[in-house]
C-alpha cells in the first residue's frame, strides 16, 4: 500500500529549509550547519520513533523496553565518542569538553519533577518540539507551560541551591582516574542494557492479562 507524499507541504518545507538556511549562512556559517543538524535530529527522531519520555514510562506501563534499549545504545556510543574527544582535548592541553553543572539535591528534585511532567504531558522537551512539527496543537500549550516553568525554575534556582546541598561541577575521572572512570561508566551502561532483558521477564505494574501472558511464556 504505497501512498504518495503530500507534495505541496513537502515543497513548502524544502523551500523554507533552503531559504532560511541561506539566510542563516549569511548571518553566520555555524548557524547554517546547526540548522542542518537540527533538521537531521528531527528527521531521525520522527522516523525511528524514539521518544525519550518512553524510556521509563513504557517499561512501567507496558513492559516494553525497546526505547530504553535504544536510548542506552545512544548513551554508550555518545559516551564513547565524547570520552575520546575529552582525551584528545586533555592531551592537547584544552579544556575538557562536555556538559558539567553543579549537582546536589536540586538535581534530584528536578529529575523527579521532570519525570512526572513528561509522563503527564506525553512528551519530553525534545518530544514536545517533535509533536509540534507533527501538527499537534496541544503541544503548543505544553511548550508554553515549558517556557513558563523554565522561567520559574531559573528564578527559584538560588532558593534550592542555598537551602539544600549543592556541589561544584565534577568530572568523574578526576576522582577515579581516566581509565577507571571510563570503564565504570561503560560497565554501568552495559549493566543497565543487560538489566532491561532481565526486567522484561518480571512485569510489575502490569495488567493481569500481561502477567498471565508472561507466565505462559
Amino acid at each position, binding site marked *: 500500500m504505497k501512498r504518495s*507524499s503530500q507534495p505541496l507541504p513537502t515543497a513548502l518545507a524544502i523551500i523554507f529549509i533552503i531559504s532560511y538556511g541561506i539566510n542563516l549562512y549569511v548571518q553566520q556559517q555555524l548557524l547554517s550547519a546547526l540548522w542542518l543538524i537540527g533538521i537531521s535530529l*528531527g528527521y531521525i*527522531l520522527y522516523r525511528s520513533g524514539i521518544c525519550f519520555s518512553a524510556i521509563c514510562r513504557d517499561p512501567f*506501563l507496558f513492559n516494553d523496553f525497546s526505547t530504553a534499549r535504544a536510548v542506552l545504545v*545512544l548513551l554508550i556510543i555518545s559516551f564513547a565518542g565524547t570520552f575520546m574527544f575529552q582525551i584528545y582535548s586533555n592531551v592537547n592541553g584544552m579544556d575538557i569538553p562536555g556538559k558539567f553543572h553543579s549537582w546536589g539535591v536540586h538535581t534530584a528534585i*528536578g529529575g523527579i519533577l521532570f519525570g*512526572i511532567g513528561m509522563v503527564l504531558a506525553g512528551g519530553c522537551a525534545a518530544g514536545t518540539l517533535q509533536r509540534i512539527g507533527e501538527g499537534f496543537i496541544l503541544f503548543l*500549550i505544553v511548550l508554553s*507551560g515549558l517556557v513558563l516553568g523554565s522561567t520559574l525554575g531559573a528564578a527559584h534556582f538560588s532558593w534550592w541551591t542555598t537551602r539544600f546541598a549543592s556541589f561544584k561541577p565534577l568530572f*568523574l575521572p578526576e576522582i577515579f582516574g581516566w581509565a577507571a572512570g571510563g570503564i565504570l561508566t561503560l560497565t554501568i551502561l552495559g549493566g543497565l542494557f543487560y538489566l532491561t532483558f532481565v526486567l522484561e521477564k518480571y512485569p510489575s505494574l502490569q495488567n493481569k492479562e500481561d502477567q498471565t501472558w508472561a507466565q505462559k511464556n
Partner: protein
Amino acid sequence: MIGKKEFFYWLIKGNWPQWFGGILLAFLNIILTIFYKTWGITGDTADWGFRVWSFLGGHPERWTAYFNEVGYKSLYKHPIYNGDTVLNFGLVIGVFLAVTLAGEFRIKKIKSARQVILGLIGGILMGYGARLALGCNVGAMIGGISSQSPHGWIFAVFMIFGSLAGSLIIKKFFIQ
C-alpha cells in the same frame, strides 16, 4: 540487494528501528560536542521565557545563582540568530519535513480538557525540573552521562522515580 527505489522508500516512509535512530542521534551529539556544544533543549526555552519576563518589566539578570551556572551570555544572545534556537527550530522543521515527505501530516486538534490540563501541568513541571537540574533528559541525561558528570546520573536516576510516579498517577486517575 535492495534497489534505489526501495532505499528511498525506506528513507521516506520506513519505520526505522529505534536502536538505529539511537546510533544516528549519538553521532550527531558527538558532532555537536566537538564543533559546538553538547545537545540541549531546555536552556533555550528558558531564555525565551527570560525575554518575555524582561519585556514585561522583570529582571531575570538578578537571578545570579542561576546565571553563574549557565553564563550570562545566554541573556544577551540574539533572539533568533543563536545556535540553540536554530537547533530547536531546525528540529521542529526536520520533523515537519519527515512527516510531509511520508504524507502523514495532519493538524491534530485538542480532544479533551484533560489533555489541556495535563499538558499545561506537565509542561510547567518539566520546565521547572529541567532548570533545577540544569538540563532536560537530553541536556542533563544524555549530555551529562556521556561527558561523565554526576549531575547526569543523578538526574537520570530520579527521572526514573518521577516517571514511575507519573505512570501511577495516570493509571490511577485517568484510566478507570
